[in-house]
């Protein structure tokens, strides 16, 4: 299947009004907030957003205020995807019965990593299996940040969180990150992709593709959280670049089961000397501080080994190497 790529210039998106407004209460340096702004730059017409509980819901919609300048529905932690399927089905039947104007309405479901990896996965799995036409955006800040930095299925190996504290006994989280995007690819849906806010053009194009495709689409967006990652607020976007350059979070898209590397990662695949060591990415984050002490140094090599292994596996899937 071919999806036509939306060609746009910076001016095109500049002329669009910001649909995610200023004055929300996200922490200073919150990358998920940048992600929300960029996602809404890609909407093409009437759009309804539904959102699971999570940081971005808590910071932007404290009754009676909302920062979203488009129809927005809050739902419980576990059912962002179920809500989206309901909205999509309702629009379909209301259009058929002539209750609303007969025009296409895009549905976007947004959830954090807790609302996708752990709590929301059954609703998501069901919705993509039923083939509803919606885009699911996962903004991954790698822990339950709004409730106090508890570990989630998305927390990477060795990260210190409040429920997997690094100390005498354990070196942070002992388990690896769940390969959520691959799980969704296994559902054989038309469009799955990963994106990072540093590569904003890539991110906006992917959101647009996800909206244009017929049927369910899934977008996994990397979103550094300075509060939970114990990093400098100014470095949030830099971290989203480092994650791609160290191949911790490679960018790819999978259209109808065919994997394809996106250009920022393809550059690294073509010129392996450009691949940075994982250390560079970990050293900027306080949650990995313990890995740089003699006691847990070995884990650093282990993380590098796992990252390389996953990268090689991805290259094979994309038909490179």
């Amino acid at each position, binding site marked *: 299947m071919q999806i036509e790529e939306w060609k746009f210039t*910076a001016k095109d998106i500049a002329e669009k009004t910001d649909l995610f407004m*200023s*004055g929300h209460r996200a922490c200073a*340096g919150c990358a998920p907030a940048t992600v929300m702004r960029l996602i809404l730059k890609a909407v093409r017409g009437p759009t309804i957003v539904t959102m699971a509980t999570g940081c971005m819901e808590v910071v932007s919609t*404290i009754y009676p205020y909302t*920062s979203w*300048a488009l129809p927005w529905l809050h739902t419980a932690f576990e059912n962002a995807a179920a809500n989206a399927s309901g909205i999509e089905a309702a629009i379909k039947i209301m259009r058929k019965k002539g209750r609303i104007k007969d025009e296409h309405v895009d549905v976007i479901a947004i959830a954090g990593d807790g609302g996708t990896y752990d709590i929301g996965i059954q609703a998501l799995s069901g919705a993509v299996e039923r083939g509803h036409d919606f885009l699911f955006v996962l903004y991954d800040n790698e822990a339950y940040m709004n409730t106090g930095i508890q570990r989630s299925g998305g927390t990477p190996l060795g990260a210190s969180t409040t429920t997997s504290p690094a100390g005498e006994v354990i070196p942070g989280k002992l388990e690896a990150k769940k390969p959520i995007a691959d799980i969704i690819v296994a559902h054989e849906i038309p469009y799955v992709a990963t994106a990072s806010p540093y590569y904003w053009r890539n991110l906006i194009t992917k959101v647009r593709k996800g909206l244009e495709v017929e049927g369910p689409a899934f977008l996994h967006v990397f979103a550094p959280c300075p509060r939970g990652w114990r990093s400098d*607020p100014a470095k949030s976007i830099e971290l989203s670049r480092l994650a791609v350059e160290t191949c911790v979070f490679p960018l790819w898209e999978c259209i109808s089961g065919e994997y394809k590397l996106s250009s920022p990662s393809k550059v690294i695949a073509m010129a392996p000397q450009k691949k940075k060591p994982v250390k560079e990415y970990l050293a900027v984050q306080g949650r990995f501080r313990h890995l740089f002490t003699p006691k847990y140094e070995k884990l650093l090599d282990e993380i590098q080994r796992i990252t390389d292994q996953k990268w090689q596996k991805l290259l094979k899937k994309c038909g490179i190497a």
Partner: protein
Amino acid sequence: MSFPKTRKEMPLTPLSLPTVGSMGKTGSWRTFKPVVNYSTCTKCTLCWIYCPDGAITRREDDSPEIDYEYCKGCGICANECPVKAITMEREEE
């Protein structure tokens, strides 16, 4: 549709209407403020793209203008500016 400009203009309804500044003027959170040096700025608009608060607006000629009412002073714009035309300066009393 026009949106209410401030919280005071919000009508009393069970429905939330979008408004700028849903949490008040978040600029008061700031300890460092970004200052743009317009002579070195190349108008690449990257600061505008990456600002999590949408506190940077573009002027007619694409140069950035920072809205100090909502800027939280995170420093992302200064960090990402390719020509380092934005510096973070301490807020004076």
